[in-house]
């Protein structure tokens, strides 16, 4: 049985990070200043137009759209960890659910902003709705991203309700207004059996509903490409290819977040080596599936070498994009899979390094999917300057691309500062079900 002291220890351990401290202020200050610099660059783009970027008539989707795909991809992890693993009874993953949800919410909400960065006339954003064409994947994309964002927010919020109550009661050193906010948001939580039942029911509903929504958001994103007949995009497996790629990116993001939360919030008892071991195996699994899709996506056209595809494939395999292409495939996918097969590598620090490799690889992979196709249109490119033919991002564009990443970090940092990132109520409950010490393995 959960003893009183155990419960108290868990509560105080998990609520400890919720306070202002120096490192938080310094970190947020750093993020804030960086964001201001990047916004300055965006000011230049607003003032002078898209000429400040390397985008043009031929390559009109560059780093911004690649980032957009990356953001949508990473956000899918909420669905994988909280919904799929949760519904299939993988108890080990439940302490990671909230981290995954925070990442999902942050990346999904910023994904929409990334799209605006790509617009030369952002003040016309509403035209997407006003003049939206129902048969255009762009409208579907706007719809599903919004839906996924709302559902992710609820998926984060509803299981959090009991914890909010605990926060309002236990965080005595907070100013009263802050505790009041917790109280209001905790919706009159009294831990009654009926309330527990409602929480369980609604969480389950969301967990089921979010699976098709998440599949839809990334499938639709892939259709933005696959519904055209351009070489390299004209593919029937783009949906599942993107979805599995998304799981790889998202799992890497969760691993990186796990490492930093565990270290900075001193959560070694709650995010254990076993969690790293398990999620390492999960990363191998999703990476293998993704590798399989990569094999299909590149091997089949490579074998046939249809004329238009052949130009692109040659470019990717051996010419302009070869270095990036092979680095992404080997350093971002094959090598991590091999490394993670060793138990020694599934420890926190090596996992952090591998996670960063995979996440970087995932971003560059989006560039490899988005950009080279546009450099090879069906009609020949004639009499244009070289920089029209080969996409080279500018410094301003790079700074603007960094902005959404900073924004994501700010959202994650803020959320992780105001809510316990390991579910308190759930951890205590699990302890009551299966009497194990919080020191030990939560498996």
């Amino acid at each position, binding site marked *: 049985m959960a003893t009183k002291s155990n419960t108290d220890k868990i509560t105080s351990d998990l609520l400890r990070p919720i306070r202002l401290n120096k490192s938080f202020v310094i970190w947020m200050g750093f993020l804030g200043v960086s964001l201001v610099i990047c916004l300055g660059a965006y000011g230049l783009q607003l003032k002078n137009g898209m000429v400040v970027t390397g985008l043009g008539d031929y390559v009109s989707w560059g780093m911004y759209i690649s980032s957009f795909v990356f953001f949508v991809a990473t956000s899918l992890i909420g669905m994988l960890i909280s919904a799929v693993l949760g519904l299939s009874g993988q108890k080990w993953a439940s302490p990671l659910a909230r981290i995954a949800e925070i990442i999902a919410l942050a990346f999904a909400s910023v994904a929409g902003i990334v799209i605006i960065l790509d617009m030369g006339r952002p003040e016309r954003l509403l035209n997407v709705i006003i003049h939206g*064409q*129902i*048969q*255009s*994947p762009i409208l*579907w994309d706007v*719809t599903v991203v919004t*839906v996924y964002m*709302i*559902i992710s927010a*609820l998926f984060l919020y*509803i299981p959090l*309700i009991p914890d909010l109550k605990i926060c309002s009661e236990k965080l005595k050193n907070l100013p009263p207004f802050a505790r009041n906010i917790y109280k209001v948001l905790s*919706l*009159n*939580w*009294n831990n*009654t059996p*009926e*309330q527990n039942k*409602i*929480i369980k*029911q*609604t969480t389950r*509903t*969301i967990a089921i*509903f979010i699976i098709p*929504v998440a599949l*839809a958001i990334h499938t639709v994103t892939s259709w933005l490409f696959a*519904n055209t007949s351009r070489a390299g995009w004209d593919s029937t497996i783009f949906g599942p290819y993107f979805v599995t790629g998304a799981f790889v990116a998202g799992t890497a993001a969760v691993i990186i977040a796990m490492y930093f939360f565990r270290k900075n919030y001193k959560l070694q008892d709650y995010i254990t080596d076993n969690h790293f071991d398990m999620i390492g195996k999960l990363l191998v699994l999703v990476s293998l599936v993704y590798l399989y899709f990569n094999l299909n996506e590149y091997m089949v056209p490579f074998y046939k070498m249809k004329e238009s595809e052949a130009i692109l494939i040659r470019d990717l395999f051996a010419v302009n994009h070869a270095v990036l292409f092979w680095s992404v495939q080997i350093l971002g996918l094959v090598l991590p899979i091999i490394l993670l097969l060793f138990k020694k590598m599934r420890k926190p620090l090596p996992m952090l390094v591998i996670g960063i490799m995979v996440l970087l690889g995932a971003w560059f992979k989006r560039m490899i999917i988005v950009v080279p196709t546009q450099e090879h249109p069906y009609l020949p490119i*004639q*009499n244009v300057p070289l920089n029209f033919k080969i996409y080279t991002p500018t410094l301003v564009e790079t700074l603007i691309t960094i902005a959404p990443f900073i924004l994501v970090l700010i959202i994650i940092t803020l959320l992780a500062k105001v809510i316990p990132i390991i579910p308190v109520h759930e951890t205590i409950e699990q302890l009551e079900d299966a009497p194990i010490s919080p020191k030990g393995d939560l498996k």
Partner: protein
Amino acid sequence: MYTRNLRIVTFAIVSMFFLHSFAENNWNVPADKKARNSTIKFDATTSKVGESVYTKNCVSCHGDPTKGNSLKSLSPVPPDLASAKTQELTDGELFYILNTGRVIMPSFNNVLSEEDRWKIISYIRSFNKDYVQQLSISDTNKSQLVKVDMAFDKKSNQITVTVKANEKTGVVSLKDDEIVLFANRYFGRLQIGESQRTTADGVAVFDFPKDLPGDKDGNVKLVVKVNDDTYGEISRLKTMKIGVPTDIPSMTADRTIWNVLFKPIWIIVLYTFGVMVFGCVLLYLLYSLNRLRKAGNI
């Protein structure tokens, strides 16, 4: 050794001959055409118009004048039109080259209006500081006196073109003029039959094909071009209902997913259904949260 030298010498002579013939820049323009001048005065405005016509029709091969960025993969390489060699040509020669073309260099006679062709030359000349224009002495207003009639005879399927000029002294038939008849197509014009010369009454007769597609109602836009030494180049447009009515929707008109005009019902149904399911789930969740709040009252 000897034969080898001979071969080299022969090769050198032959190649010099070829190089020479290219270097000569010889377009063999007939003297009367060479002396031809524009009736339009070249100035900044005409050169501006010329530039935009040039950008659409010439840049792809000749590149930007003075930049030397013409399409090097062609043989002969299209010259930079700002170059001294091109500028040495008279206006009449340039006009002739534009009209006739040669192998790779296309003929623009039937593609661009006479006015546009002169304006391109105005643009080409704007790169030459030493250029002084000689205007054509022929009266530009004269062409307005010309009246062109087109009549279609259903039985013989022929078009009769009558060209007359309303001079103060009375109506004059233009005889022995070259008449060319075109039908406007999506891209450029389609010449109908051979060009004809007018009879003494100023009449030229063209056989019209029976199977020429028109628009939905069978309308065909016809352009008739008259070349007269006194009255200049005259072109008139007339729409006649003499084609085969044709209404072929484009192959993608009613099915592509990106089509703006056509909204497939299945997409409307699926989309609406999806949004409605989401709405229901959202309502259920909000309702549950409300129940949760009430259930806390003990």
